[in-house]
């Protein structure tokens, strides 16, 4: 148990170091002077020179890299150019809508996908199976931001059930804030349910034919107990993996969907940072999100190890 853990831990550290390096490189492949790009064409050479010093761009690349890594190790993600606050604080201030949006989308996706996946595997080849498989394929092809816009058009603009955009303004209660998340969460949830449903079906098919399922039936257990208690429980590991990966994918969807619905989350922070060329914010957001992904993956791997005695690394 300990040896594979240490091995994976070392691998994860290497991957994280590479992630940090990639983020560092991306911002520096920009053609021309990032300081001049950030300030725009109206900036005086003095302004540009000042910003270069502030960002440390006047130093050699090696020094910049060491400073950057040193800052990260002490928990410093840098300073936003436009927001006048540290990147870490800016990300934290925007974390709530993104967190809730991801959480609710995942809940909606699982509520749709798990029963559909289990039943379509159970009734393999039936009309239900064919219809839901086709629907899942369809859902996976819909751009989430477009579905969001269509939902907005119908339920917010035409029917007036929801506000088309925003997060209720400052000081809005939790209920109001959550109400604003319904449409974006439904849009993202439907789109991501496709992947989970497909995986649930595939994993269920894998175990439904296994001996232990036959044994359970032979023992006279009810079908319900056989399917949920035995088969689903054993199919759960790959399903949990895909749910974990979907959570990471949802971040991609959230970036665009937050912009559609004017939610003040991390996604819209990133988009505005890109439009304003606020490189420290882009850098910090990339790092935090990729870092979360690496950690989620690591945790999933460790869960495998803990749950399934057959898995060895």
């Amino acid at each position, binding site marked *: 148990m300990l040896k594979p853990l240490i091995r994976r831990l070392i*691998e994860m550290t*290497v*991957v*994280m170091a*590479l*992630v940090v390096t*990639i*983020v560092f490189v*991306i*911002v*520096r*492949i*920009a*053609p021309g002077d990032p300081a001049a790009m950030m300030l725009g064409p109206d900036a005086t050479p003095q302004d540009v020179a000042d910003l270069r010093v502030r960002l440390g761009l006047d130093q050699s690349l090696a020094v910049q890299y060491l400073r950057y890594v040193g800052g990260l190790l002490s928990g410093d993600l840098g300073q936003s150019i436009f927001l006048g606050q540290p990147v870490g604080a800016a990300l934290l201030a925007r974390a709530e809508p993104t967190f809730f949006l991801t959480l609710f989308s995942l809940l909606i996706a699982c509520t749709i996908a798990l029963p559909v996946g289990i039943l379509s595997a159970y009734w393999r080849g039936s009309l239900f199976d064919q219809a839901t498989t086709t629907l899942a*394929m*369809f859902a*996976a*092809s*819909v*751009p989430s*931001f*477009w579905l969001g*816009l*269509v939902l*907005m*058009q119908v339920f917010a*603009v035409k029917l007036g059930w929801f506000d088309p955009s925003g997060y209720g303004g400052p000081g809005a209660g939790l209920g109001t804030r959550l109400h604003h998340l319904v449409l974006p969460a439904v849009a993202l949830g439907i789109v991501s349910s496709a992947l989970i449903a*497909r995986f649930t079906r*595939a994993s269920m*098919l*894998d175990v439904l034919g296994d001996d232990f399922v036959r044994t359970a039936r032979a023992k006279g257990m009810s079908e319900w107990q056989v399917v949920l208690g035995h088969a689903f429980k054993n199919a759960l590991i790959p399903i949990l993996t895909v749910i974990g990966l979907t959570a*990471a*994918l949802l*971040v*991609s*969807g959230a*970036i*665009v969907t937050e*912009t*559609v619905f004017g939610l003040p989350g991390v996604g819209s922070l*990133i*988009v505005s940072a*890109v*439009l304003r*060329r606020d490189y420290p914010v*882009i850098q910090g*957001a*990339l790092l935090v*999100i*990729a*870092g979360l*992904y*690496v950690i989620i*993956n690591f945790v999933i791997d460790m869960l495998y190890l803990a749950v399934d005695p057959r898995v060895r690394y």
Partner: protein
Amino acid sequence: MAATSTSMDAERGILAGLLRRPPAVAGLVVLVVIVALAIFASQVMPYPPGQLSIRSRLQGPSLLHLFGTDEFGRDVLSRTIHAGRISLAVGGTVVVVSALIGVTLGLFAGYFRRLDPPLSRLIDAMMAFPDILLAIALVAALGPSAVNVVLALGIVYAPRVARVVRASTLVIRELAYVEAARALGVPTPVILVRHVLRNLASPVMVQGSFIFANAILAEAGLSFLGVGVSPDIPTWGTMIAMGRQFMDQAGWIMWFPGVAIILSVMSLQLLGDALRDLLDPRLSRTT
């Protein structure tokens, strides 16, 4: 591995196999229609895509304008067809770029044992970034343009190709005839090109169709956010971005480009699924 016979036979076999699968046929037909519309756009567009007509602005779908008109009175059907050229071209080029980078990375990682750990960790690290996020950051660094969007998405999807290529190469390099070639002293570059690369066609093709689908979605997302191709160039993404401002009075402006995206992406996924089943029978029972 598929390609033990000549590649012509293999291709014919794949096509025949696809034609036996109804979902694949549906995907193929829709894809061929969409690609044909894009190629022959100038012949099939009912109106020039840029033709302004203030008098007929924001008109709903009618016999005159099947998909309605936009805020400048331009024909939405013509613009959807025209935009398809860019969206499909971007998607297709992304497949080529990601295949070039991904095959190189995967081939080296899979064939040369010493290169495997560093390259595999690099692939892991690149896959840690959500596709849209990495693409946004790359486009932000490179500057927004169609070429840079292709480059960025090509880099974003390259690790996916690299992973399957590495896995296949690991298998191929141990095959008896590759070992025989090594024993006979055939130079490594020749082995790589003649024996390994040729057998990678099928996994790359499968991955390519999924990347094509994803690239169409990602390009639409980037253009919608205003960090992709210039808003003046009609793509399905920029059309949706423009149309959203008129959703209360003219929803069709954004509906139809969205439907075009769905049809293209779905047909590519149907094809990719069928190809995977055909080329890798081990996987077919799970789909």
